[in-house]
């Protein structure tokens, strides 16, 4: 039952960097269409976990099955990019390229090399880019150099890229950390809307409790590479969050 409904099945996920244990033997099962918030102080392993789920860094130990296929068996490129996609803070765009090329990068997994090369000189699928950008309210920026856009606008470009990639699982690493509260809310709304479109799964790391309560269904607390809690969002209490973040502060001093 769970096996059929779940899209992520991780067993004993472990990753170390030299002497530092970034993730220690985590079990994680996420169902189709779930909206999971990942919380935890910095250095707790959120980025590492998301990168592992995205297939960007290899596991030391453990088993990761995405959509009933071991991640090692998924062909990088087309097959993997249909299943997972990642948004980071605005760092993940190429600032020198025009907006349209950054959005079309979402197609690179599907396109062959020749098509990718040709599109760099004369953009393919412009219509779909216009459609995605209009939905995000920045269609007028399509030909602008990406570095000219504000932080919030760049984050929308990253979401547009994700819309063209259209992966089953959307991973977002602190997508709103560098934005002011109003813009952060707007970006999360757009991101979760895109996810809800066709029952996509979303896992995002973020710190703001009110945004977590509003846009997510499940919360996982991470500290020093271990899950501290994994609860429905209704059970998220201030004490729990305080404990998660405070414990670390006591630990560091």
């Amino acid at each position, binding site marked *: 039952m769970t096996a059929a409904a779940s899209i992520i099945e991780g067993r004993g996920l472990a990753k170390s960097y030299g002497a530092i244990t970034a993730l220690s033997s985590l079990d994680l099962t996420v169902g189709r269409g779930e909206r999971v918030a990942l919380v935890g102080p910095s250095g707790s392993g959120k980025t590492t976990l998301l990168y592992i789920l*995205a297939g960007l860094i290899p596991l030391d130990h453990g088993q990761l099955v995405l959509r009933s296929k071991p991640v090692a068996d998924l062909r990088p490129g087309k097959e993997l*990019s*249909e299943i997972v*996609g990642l948004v980071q803070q605005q760092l993940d765009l190429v600032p020198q390229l025009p907006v349209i090329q950054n959005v079309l990068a979402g197609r690179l997994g*599907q396109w062959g090399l020749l098509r990718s090369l040709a599109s760099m000189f004369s953009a393919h699928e412009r219509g779909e880019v216009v459609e995605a950008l209009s939905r995000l309210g920045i269609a007028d920026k399509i030909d602008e150099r990406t570095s000219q856009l504000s932080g919030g606008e760049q984050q929308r470009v990253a979401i547009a890229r994700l819309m063209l990639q259209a992966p089953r699982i959307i991973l977002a690493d602190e997508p709103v950390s560098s934005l002011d509260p109003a813009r952060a809310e707007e970006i999360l709304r757009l991101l979760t809307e895109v996810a809800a479109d066709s029952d996509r799964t979303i896992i995002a790391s973020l710190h703001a409790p009110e945004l977590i309560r509003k846009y997510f269904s499940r919360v996982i607390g991470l500290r020093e590479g271990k899950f501290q809690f994994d609860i429905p969002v209704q059970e998220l209490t201030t004490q729990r969050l305080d404990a998660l973040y405070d414990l670390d502060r006591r630990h560091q001093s």
Partner: protein
Amino acid sequence: MIWTGVTKARGAARFLETRRLLTLVLAGALVWSLTGVDWGGGIVHTGGGNAFKEFLTALFPPELSPGFLKLAIAASWQTLVHAVAGITLALAIGLALGVVASGSLGHLGRSRLAIAVAARFLLAIMRSIHELVWAVLFVTAFGLSSLAVVLAIAIPYAGILGRIYSELLNDVPDGPLDGLRSSGASPAKVLVYGRIPLALTDMIGYSFYRFECAIRAAAIMSFVGIRGLGYEIQLSLNDLLFSEVWTLLLFLVGLVLLVDYWSTRVRRSLGS
């Protein structure tokens, strides 16, 4: 324990002594070598002062007769053509070898790594030989032809450009590259959509700088008998026609300034 401590201290003292002694010896050698230089009439040509004055005054005015200007323009054109052809070929070879040498075309498996190392080695050989030496080789092989000059410039410059390109392509931030990889981009697509756009401004800036150097190099090919600005400068110098030399030098400076201006415009349009 105590013993090793003592010997260590003594060893350190001896090391310091040796170092001081060495410094003294080297400084002495330097001073002594200065006495080895013949500061007298030998090194400065007697009457050199006069010749130099003559050379300077010849600037007012330089040779501006229509006939000579025509010759200067033709020579400048020749030099420019050699430089452009040489640098263009160098760009193509340098980019291809630089990409391979950077290892950014794939995860470095054993054979990929071997290929990258081979490319780096090849680039090192190409740039460690001076363009004039290459010119001697190619003139011997192909005679006094433009092909010889173009190759003599292209090969060492490709070596330098390839080395710099491979560093610039590797020296880009990881964030955007990870973004592309998470969209399913292969290393080759990451190169085209990430590394090259991220490094392009620096690559172009450096290439223009090398273009300026290529003009200088093309001019100096006169040493192996190739025609162009350098060749004419040599002829005029031999005849002690300094105002002609000045005209030719001004044309050379003009060429370099032209490239500089072009470079500024291109970089501005890239919005760096």
